[in-house]
C-alpha cells in the first residue's frame, strides 16, 4: 500500500473516531450528577422556570434524540453558551486555542531539540557516566510535578534574578492577530521590542511544559538507538568502513526516530495535561486556564466544550503522527 492510500484510510477512520469521542463526551455530560436544566436556569429559579429551560434545550426528549440533536449542533459549530459569560463557547475556544497551541508547539520543538541529541548520546554511550546522569535527570524530570517546577522557575528567574516576567503573554500593546501565536504575530509586525517581550514571556511556561516531554523523548530515542546500534545493518556499514558520523546521524537516527515519532501522540497528551497546570500558574490565557476556570465556576457547557476540543485535537495529532510515521518508514504503510 502506498502512502496516499494509507492517508486516505486513516482519514476515513478519523470520522468514526470523532463520533466515538462525541458519544463519550455526550454520555459524560448526561450522567454527571447535576441537572443541566437547573444549572442553566440558575440556582434560585422556580420549578416552572427549570421546566421551561428543560423544554427549550430539549432535555426532556429521549437520549438518542438528544444525541442526534447534539451532533447536529456540533456540526453547525454550536457548542452552547457559557453559563458564566453568556458567550458562545465556540468563540471562547477559538480565542484561547492559539495560546495553548503556541505553548505546545514550542514545547514540542524544545523537547525535540533537547531530547533527540541527548537520547542519541545516551544510546551510543550506554551505561557510561553520561547515560547514568541523564537517566537520573530524566526520571526526575518525569516525576517532578509541573506546578512545583513552574513555581521554582518563577521564584528563581523572575523573583530572585529578575531576568524573566512572572506571568502573562506580553507587555504593552499586543501585535495584530494574524496566526494567534503571539511570538509569530510579533515577528510579522517586525517590532523588536514586541518580539523580545513575547519571547521573554513564553520562555518559562514552555520550558516547564517541555522538560517532562523532553525526558520522554530522551528515553525513547535512547532505547531506539540501543535497539539499532547492535543491528546487522550497522555492523555491515561498519565492516564496509563507512564513517561513524554518517552511520549514526543518518542511518541510526532515522531508525531510532521511528520509535520516538510513534510516541509523539503520547507526548502531546502529556503536554495538553501539563498545559492545564502551567497556564494557570503563569496566567497564560489558553485552553488549560479556561478549563480550570470553567470547572471552578461549574460552567458545565464550557467544560464539555473544552473536553471535546482537546479530544478532537488529540485525535487529529495522532492522525498527523500516523502520516509522519508512514512517511519515515516505507514498510509501515500497511
Amino acid at each position, binding site marked *: 500500500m502506498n502512502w496516499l492510500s494509507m492517508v486516505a484510510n486513516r482519514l476515513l477512520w478519523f470520522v468514526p473516531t470523532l463520533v466515538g469521542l462525541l458519544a463519550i463526551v455526550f454520555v459524560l455530560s448526561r450522567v454527571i450528577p447535576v441537572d443541566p436544566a437547573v444549572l442553566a436556569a440558575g440556582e434560585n429559579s422556580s420549578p416552572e422556570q427549570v421546566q421551561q429551560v428543560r423544554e427549550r434545550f430539549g432535555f426532556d426528549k429521549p437520549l438518542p434524540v438528544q444525541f442526534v440533536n447534539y451532533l447536529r449542533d456540533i456540526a453547525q459549530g454550536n457548542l452552547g453558551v457559557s453559563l458564566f459569560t453568556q458567550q458562545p463557547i465556540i468563540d471562547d475556544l477559538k480565542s484561547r486555542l492559539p495560546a495553548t497551541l503556541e505553548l505546545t508547539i514550542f514545547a514540542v520543538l524544545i523537547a525535540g531539540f533537547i531530547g533527540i541529541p541527548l537520547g542519541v548520546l545516551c544510546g551510543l554511550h550506554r551505561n557510561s557516566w553520561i547515560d547514568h546522569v541523564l537517566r537520573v535527570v530524566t526520571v526526575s524530570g518525569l516525576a517532578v510535578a509541573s506546578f512545583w517546577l513552574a513555581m521554582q522557575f518563577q521564584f528563581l528567574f523572575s523573583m530572585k534574578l529578575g531576568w524573566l516576567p512572572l506571568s502573562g503573554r506580553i507587555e504593552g500593546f499586543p501585535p495584530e492577530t494574524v496566526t494567534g501565536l503571539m511570538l509569530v504575530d510579533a515577528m510579522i509586525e517586525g517590532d523588536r521590542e514586541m518580539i523580545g517581550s513575547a519571547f521573554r514571556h513564553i520562555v518559562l511556561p514552555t520550558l516547564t511544559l517541555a522538560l517532562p516531554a523532553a525526558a520522554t523523548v530522551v528515553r525513547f530515542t535512547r532505547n531506539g538507538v540501543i535497539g539499532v546500534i547492535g*543491528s*546487522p*545493518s550497522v*555492523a*555491515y*556499514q*561498519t*565492516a*564496509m*568502513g*563507512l*564513517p561513524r558520523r*554518517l552511520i549514526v546521524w*543518518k*542511518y541510526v537516527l*532515522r*531508525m531510532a526516530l*521511528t520509535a520516538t515519532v510513534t510516541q509523539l501522540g503520547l507526548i502531546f497528551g502529556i503536554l495538553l495535561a501539563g498545559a492545564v497546570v502551567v497556564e494557570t500558574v503563569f496566567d497564560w490565557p489558553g485552553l488549560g486556564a479556561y478549563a480550570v476556570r470553567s470547572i471552578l465556576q461549574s460552567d458545565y457547557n464550557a467544560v464539555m466544550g473544552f473536553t471535546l476540543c482537546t479530544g478532537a485535537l488529540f485525535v487529529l495529532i495522532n492522525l498527523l503522527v500516523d502520516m509522519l510515521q508512514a512517511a*519515515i*518508514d*516505507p*514498510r509501515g504503510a500497511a
Partner: protein
Amino acid sequence: MSNLLDIQALSLGFRTEKGIAKVLDRIDISVKPGEIVGLVGESGCGKSTLARAILGTLPEGQTEINSGHIRLDGVDMLSGGKAAEHLRGRVVTFVPQDPFASFNPLFRIGTQIQDLMRFKAPRDGAGSFGRSRKADEASAIAMLDAVQLPQPKAILAKYPHQLSGGQRQRVMIAMALLPQPRMIIADEPTTALDVTVQAQILGLLRRLAVERGVSVLFTTHDLGAAWEICDRIVVMYAGQTAEIAPREQFFGDPRHPYTRMLLDSLPSPGRDPVGIPGGVPSPLKAPDGCRFNPRCPRATDICHESRPALTTGSDGHAVACHHPWLAKAEGAHV
C-alpha cells in the same frame, strides 16, 4: 606470490560473566591474491569471529586479543588505526550472512549504494571534481547488471523489503565489488537463502571474483557450498585450525580425523551418513591439547597433553594432528 591476507597465531577471547571464552586459539590462515578460500566448520567454531576480526566489528570492550596478528596487504587490521579503517570498504569488502537485516530498511537501495560509493569507490579519471552523481549512478547500474539483476535502474529506487532474498544478496555482491576491492569476506552468504537460489549466488560470486582477480574468504558450514566455489579449504574446530588442503585433496584425501568424520556425516549414495558423537566444547572450558580429543576415536594421551602443530607437507596440505591419516593410506576416501 606473497599473501594478501596473513593471519598468524591469532588468539582472542570474549569477556563474559562466566569468565573468558577462548573463541580463537592460535589460528593460522593465509590467502593469496585471487585465491578463493573456504573456512569450514560447525556453528561456534569461530569462523564468523575470524571474519569480524578482519572487518573490525568485534564487540567493543568485550574482546581480548591475546596473541598473533592479522595483516591485510601489509596493514595490521587489529590495530584499529586509520590505515585499517581506510582499507575496509576499499581493499577488503563484505558480503553478509543476512542480506535483509544488513540493509537499513528505511533507505532506498540507491541511497545506500550512493553513500558507499561516495566514501569508498575509486574516482575515475576526472580529478577531484570527477565524482558526480551521474557517473556513480552509471557505474552502480553497470554493476547491478553484472550481478544479473533485471532492470537495475528500477532497483535503485526500491526499498530493501521490496526485493527477494536472492535479489538482495545480488545487490550485496554488487556493493562488495563496486569499490574494486582485492578481497571479499563472505560470511555464510547463502545461509539465509532458498536452496535453489544458493547455487546461483555461489556461482555468480565465484565467476565475478575470478574474472576480476578478487580473493574471497568464504565461511560456511556447508561442505557442498565449499566444494562449489573454493580453491582451498580451511577446517576449523572449536577455535583451532584442524586442516588446510586444496579442494581436491580435501575431498579426496582428508587427513584430520575431524575432517574425515565431517565428510562421513554427509549423505551420499550407497552409504548412510554417520554423525559425530558428542558436541563442540564450550569456549569457556575448552579441553587442553587438541580440542577435538574428547570426540576423536584416534585420541591418545599425547592429544590431551599437547596441542599438535600445524605441519605442512610438500603438497601444500597442512594438518594439525598427532595421529593423522597418512596420505592415501587407505586409498581414495570418497
